[in-house]
Structure formats: C-alpha cells, structure tokens
C-alpha cells in the first residue's frame, strides 16, 4: 500500500471512529442511561451525573482522534518523522494519562458510593487499562518519532 493510500485510509478510519464516539456519547449513552434508570429506579438520580461523567471521559478521546487525523495528514505529505508529529503523539499520551487518572477516580468514587457493580467495575477497569496502554504506547512513539526526526534532519543536512 502506498503512503498516500495509507494516509487516506487512516484519515477515513480516524473520522469514522471520531463520529462513532460522538454518536455514542450524544445518542446511545443517554438512551441506555434512561433504560437503566427505568430498570433501577433506586439509582435513577445517578443518571445525569453518570451521563456527564461519560461525556467528560469522551472529550480527551475525541481530542486525541482529531490530533491523530493531523498526524495522518502529515503521513500523506511524506512528513511522518517531524517534530510536530512527535509533539502530537506526546499530547495524545498526556490526554490518555489524564483519561486513565479520570477513569481511576471514577472507579474509586463509585466504590465509595457503593455503586461499584461488577459490570460497571469491569467496564471502567478495562477502559482504564486500555487508556494506560495508550499512554505508554503514545509516549514511546513520541520519543521514537522525535529520534527519527533528528536522524532524518541530520541525513538531509549530510551533503
């Protein structure tokens, strides 16, 4: 697959994922939340706080998706190893680190409130683990991209 085709495919996937997350947060989460609130009237008061929590959890992910699309655009311009891409990966890593801490605080708070049901715990723990992995991977990628940029720059300035 050529670089331009790869870039276009990645941009398409990035846009699709961004749209899917936005649709899930805007439409599916409220509907499912209302259904759970109707099934468990004792916890109906938690519908709005949980919805806000989910929306706030989606913000770093959506920002990361937008930043990723900018990385894919640079790949299409044959400028994969640049200082900007290294910085963008670093920002994504920080966003996912924030997300990890945010989800962990959510788990802790749910536990304190006595609402840490098994399903809720598994979902939050899984999301937290994935977010932590993304933090580590993006931080490592940022470092590698920056080193590659330095090598590329030195190579271009080798006459």
């Amino acid at each position, binding site marked *: 697959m050529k670089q331009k085709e790869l870039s276009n495919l990645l941009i398409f996937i990035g846009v699709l994922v961004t749209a899917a997350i936005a649709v899930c947060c805007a439409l599916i989460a409220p509907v499912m939340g209302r259904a759970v609130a109707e099934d468990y009237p004792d916890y109906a008061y938690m519908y709005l706080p949980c919805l806000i929590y989910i929306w706030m959890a989606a913000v770093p992910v959506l920002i990361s998706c937008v930043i990723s699309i900018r990385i894919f655009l640079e790949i299409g311009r044959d400028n994969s190893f640049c200082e900007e891409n290294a910085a963008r990966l670093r920002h994504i890593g920080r966003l996912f680190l924030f997300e990890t801490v945010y989800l962990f605080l959510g788990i802790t708070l749910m536990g304190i409130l006595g609402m840490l049901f098994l399903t809720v715990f598994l979902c939050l723990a899984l999301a937290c683990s994935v977010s932590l992995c993304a933090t580590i991977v993006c931080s490592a990628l940022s470092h590698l991209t920056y080193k590659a940029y330095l090598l590329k*720059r*030195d190579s271009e*300035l*080798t*006459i």
Partner: protein
Amino acid sequence: MIIINLDVMLARRKMSVTELSEKVGITIANISVLKNGRAKAIRFSTLNEICRILGCQPGDILEYIDDDED
C-alpha cells in the same frame, strides 16, 4: 567548530554555485546548506568531487576554529 570556505575557493576559480553543483552532482540547495554552515556532515565522496572540481585540498575548504576563541 568547522567552517566551510567554499565562497573563497569559488571566487579563486571564478566558478559559480550553479556550475559547481552541476559538476559535482549535488543540488544548489545542498551547496547553499554547505556554504551557510548549516550542514551537519559531508560525505567523503562529495568532498572528493568538490576538491577535484575546484582543484584544491580539503584543508582549503575546511577550516577549524576553536569555539572558545569566539
């Protein structure tokens, strides 16, 4: 610090940057990078060609200046 005295040699041989780039086989942009001191490294093959075209020694083009003296 290594400085490149390409301007001096080009003036002595009455050669233009364009002519040098064509004969050596590197782009004018790269010659400019070399002249302006922005180059990080130079290949021996490039240095060999420059010296051959300009009829000079590497020491005529490359000069070492102690950074502490600046």
